[in-house]
């Protein structure tokens, strides 16, 4: 064969290969779109469309007498001056500042303890800490409602037996703390699993190097493990922030037991729900829901930027 023939054959072979690869790429692209399509279909119809409809509703005002009128940003202005809504947001900010650090610290401690390998019965302990997350929220709230009960709950009966006054778990001052307790109990296992999975993926050579340098278990945890799982910590923090502002289940169920402590607007989410179904004020409820979404976005971004800035500095 002459060199030109070889040269001619090679480009054709390459060309055929690229055509085969191009066809494969296109088929792969089509396949991936098809596989994701069901999700996007549901996402569009169940999330995006109702979101836009809700936004549309929030621009109107409906009265029992007089029908529907266009209100523009009237509902939003009203919400920003509504002391019930603002009180709810402040209450959730309070909740966030106290409960989230406690819960995540506990989850981190449990995850580190499990990862250290010093515990016996690891699987059972992991399961036991995770089980509260598997308990449906309604059952959990009912159970805690009974435990907190001022007449027949075990804490109340125990306190009465030793002559102490009944702890007012469902009273005005302690209610937020009681709800924090329920939420922590429910979610510490969930966050622990996320952090534990992140810990398991740290390469073990780092530990060997640390041991050689004479580091103990606590030093390893502080200087190696925690910095290594920072992305997972950020993830759990963001989830907790979003979950806190959306708090609905526990206050809604405890409202039955303590209807005068948990008002209609105890949390912003509960306020939106009650506005829609008790006040029949769907438009204002939509505006509250949107404002809540904006508040959550702002706080989440603030947390993320705070962490990123610290990372960049270090």
């Amino acid at each position, binding site marked *: 064969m002459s060199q030109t023939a070889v040269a001619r054959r090679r480009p054709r072979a390459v060309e055929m290969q690229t055509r085969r690869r191009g066809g494969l790429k296109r088929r792969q692209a089509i396949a991936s779109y098809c596989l994701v399509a069901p999700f996007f279909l549901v996402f569009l119809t169940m999330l995006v*469309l109702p979101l*836009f409809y809700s936004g*549309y509703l929030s621009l109107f005002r409906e009265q029992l007498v007089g029908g529907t009128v266009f209100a523009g940003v009237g509902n939003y202005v009203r919400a920003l001056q509504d002391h019930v809504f603002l009180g709810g947001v402040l209450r959730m900010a309070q909740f966030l500042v106290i409960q989230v650090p406690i819960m995540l610290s506990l989850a981190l401690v449990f995850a580190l303890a499990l990862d250290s390998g010093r515990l016996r019965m690891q699987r059972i302990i992991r399961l036991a800490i995770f089980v509260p997350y598997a308990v449906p929220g309604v059952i959990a709230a009912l159970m805690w409602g009974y435990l907190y009960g001022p007449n027949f709950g075990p804490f109340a009966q125990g306190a009465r037996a030793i002559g102490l006054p009944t702890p007012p778990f469902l009273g005005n001052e302690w209610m937020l703390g009681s709800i924090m307790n329920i939420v922590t109990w429910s979610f510490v296992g969930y966050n622990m699993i996320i952090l534990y999975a992140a810990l398991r993926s740290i390469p073990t050579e780092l530990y060997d190097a640390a041991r050689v340098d004479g580091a103990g278990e606590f030093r390893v945890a502080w200087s190696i493990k925690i910095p290594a799982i920072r992305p997972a910590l950020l993830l759990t923090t963001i989830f907790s922030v979003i979950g806190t502002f959306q708090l609905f289940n526990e206050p809604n169920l405890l409202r039955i037991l303590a*209807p*005068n402590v948990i008002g209609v607007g105890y949390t912003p989410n509960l306020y939106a729900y009650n506005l829609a179904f*008790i006040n029949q004020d769907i438009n204002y409820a939509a505006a509250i829901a949107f404002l809540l979404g904006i508040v959550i976005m702002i706080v989440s971004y603030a947390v993320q930027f705070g962490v990123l800035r610290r990372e960049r500095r270090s």
Partner: protein
Amino acid sequence: MHLFKKRPAVGLAATAMVAALALVACSGGASTNATTAAPSKITQAAIDAAMKTKTNLTFWTWVPDIKNEVALFQAKYPAIHVDVVNVGQGAAHYQKLRTAIKAGTGGPDVVQVEFQYLPSFTQGGDLLNMAPYGAAGISGDYASWIWSQVSSGSAVYGIPQDVGPMGNLYRKDLMSAAGIKLPTTWDEFSQAARTYRAANPHKYLTNMPGNDAGQFMGLVWQAGARPFGYDGKKTVTINLNTPEVAKVIDFWNPLVRDNIIGVDPDFTDPWYQGLASGLYASWQGAAWGPVFLQGTAAKTSGLWSVAPLPQWDTQKPASGNWGGSTDAVLKSTKNPIAASQLALWINTQHEPALMFATKQFLFPASNTILKDPAFVDEKSAFYGGQQVNKGFAAISATVTPNFVWLPFMDYAYSSFNETLGKAFADRTNLATGLKAWQAALTTYATQQGFTVK
């Protein structure tokens, strides 16, 4: 197009937004209030023809065992099939009903509506006027205070099913153990409460919950107050600052402040346990009380007795009403004749109406049943063999007439919990709570476009 290719996410969002707005523009949102002229009386021939036509009706109600009465109806009219659905009790039921009405579909034909919520549905024109379908002729069988709640002029919007005249349900054994005679006036009741609390430092003579505006309104009703008014169109009256209401508030204020009576929320598990364990020695409840007591307070069966409420004026015995339901027909029904006949039949025919009273312990609204010996002479084991129906029938006759409800009692009851109810629960000054409730109701009424007098 360039945008869609380079940034598919943006393109997707834009398409979604356009689609959403298009969909939403088509669906509109305002409810249609078709004002048709009231039809003239439907002829018996038309009714008979409709009852022989194969029809499917949906009936939303939470009355337990109402399937028995409906079965009797279906036996009489085999062509009509009725689906009885329990969509929840109280607030949950009304939420679903209002959502279905707003959506225009998914609602029932016949629905249970309590007396205090009827105006909120007639205000929006959601209920069928059943007068032309045979409801006009039954008015003579009901006390005027009942009939005025379901009718507006010549129109009839609900067939009364049961009522709740209020009486004093009390534990005779606990009271005599504390050395207390049954109080017949409110002054005696106040003294009895203090004596009882002194004798039993961990128990209460009674409980006044902070979450039950219905009970409180019944007591206010007994005192002769008429705080609410509604002209059926755009004007409401909200006047809680009357001497009669003040009389009731001033009575309970010291008892609540000094921790003489309980203030636990009612119809919760701890409250049932309280009644079962003797934490509360009495309940100023309604004639349907046993229905709830028999469940969790079953072990106290036989220890309860019934008496009239303590009186403000023993010369003019009076009572109030708490609760009670009607069966109404939605205007959107496709079978108005069959639906209205169902509502009428199970509540006015002797056999099913008597069954409600004797088997399900609903207190009848109908005078015929109130006088029926099978009902009146019934001895109740829960009340230690007392003929309580006779007692409550006598009380029912003393309920004073002309009590009117606002067309937004959902909101009124909810704002009670935040204001006056909260004052009860926190044991603070009830008068301040009352003022706050008045203010909240007035603000809401104005916001919703009503003229407040």
